[in-house]
């Protein structure tokens, strides 16, 4: 299933900046960065649980927030992209030439 993850991490402090970096790194391990704090992750239910657990351990819930949007397996009908920052389809042809 495809999950869209967005986050806001408060970066006023050095600890906050560190959390931001960590959150981005964990998301990157599971998916594709489509905008600055927006990731699309194609995961199975187990992988999603793992990712959630890691992210929720990383953030400070009194200052930061995370949002998960479940796009399911028919996600292609639910996503439209316009403009710069080309993305790839993890289920499409992956071909580097």
């Amino acid at each position, binding site marked *: 299933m495809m999950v869209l993850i967005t986050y806001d991490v408060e970066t006023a402090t050095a600890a906050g900046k560190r959390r931001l970096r960590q959150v981005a*790194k964990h998301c*990157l*391990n*599971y*998916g*594709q960065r489509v905008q600055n704090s927006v990731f699309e*992750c*194609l*995961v*199975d239910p187990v*992988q999603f649980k793992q990712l959630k657990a890691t992210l929720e351990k990383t953030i400070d819930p009194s200052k930061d927030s995370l949002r998960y949007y479940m796009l399911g397996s028919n996600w292609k009908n639910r996503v439209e992209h316009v403009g710069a920052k080309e993305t*790839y389809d*993890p*289920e*499409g*042809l*992956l*071909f*580097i*030439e």
Partner: protein
Amino acid sequence: MRKLLNTLYITAPDSYLARDGENVVVRKEDQIAFRIPIHNLESIIMFGYAGASPSFMHLCMERGVSVSFLQENGKYLGSVVGNVKGNVLLRRRQYRMADGPEAVTLASRFVFAKIANSRTVLRRALRDHEESIMSENVVRSSDFLKRYMRRVLASATLDDVRGVEGDAARRYFSSFNELILTDKEHFCMRGRNRRPPLDRVNAMLSFLYALLRTDVQSALETVGLDPAVGFLHRDRPGRQSLALDLMEELRGYMVDRLVLSLINRKQINPKDFLFKENGAVLLKPDLKKELIASWQKRKHEEIRHPFLKEKIALGLLPYAQALLLARYIRGDLDDYPPFLWK
């Protein structure tokens, strides 16, 4: 049945594969050209001279993703895979069977299915294009193949099985040309040839068989069988005999039919081929891409497995057959059910 994941194909000779966290990163001229999490991948196939870092290979081995190296023309060179799964008892049974009387039985199953599926390629073409095929010869070949199917099941020795297989393959490919309905002048095939392929059709067949082979081999490794010890093909250093055995029943259905429909739907440009002085025919890069794209698309089509009675992606067929073969070798099945396309 597990999910079919994606395959990453690299044809850029100047690219370098590295690891970043859980990601596979493709670098080109010190720039990141592509990045994907490893858990979205089933295998990685590299053509030509793409480089790969050891830590990238570690990641693939840990996650059971196979990395295959092919020459630019598609010839298979080798793979990097992790620790063999399954257990030594299964492999030991496989070796014993390869030396015992079961070898003839298994070999005859593979060849039986190969001939049956080749015959279905002919019958399908006859049914779909009755008016445009010079049917007499094709019908005769199909009858011959039917006879070979009976003969192979009655074979008492491996040499008999191999003999029938050779005759059947020659017969089948002698009619293959008549299944090509358009642009016969450019896509003309007189029997099967390889190393090197001498015409366009053979060049495409060879290329796609090589792709099928990487799938079959990693399927065998996934279920814990040894791809090198076969039943139909003789042991030979460096030859993945079991992979070749298991491929036999899948060639017609997965590759031959794809090549025929690509030609007949005029998706192949006859100018996308290179002709060498020694007669060898090579594929130009655009055509390789076209073939890989069609192959990937076909692998994601859903079929109902005739024995498992389950809906699976066509690309999981090698895995499903490897699983059934392992079950037979382990003694959980009384006979190996090869894939028969109806």
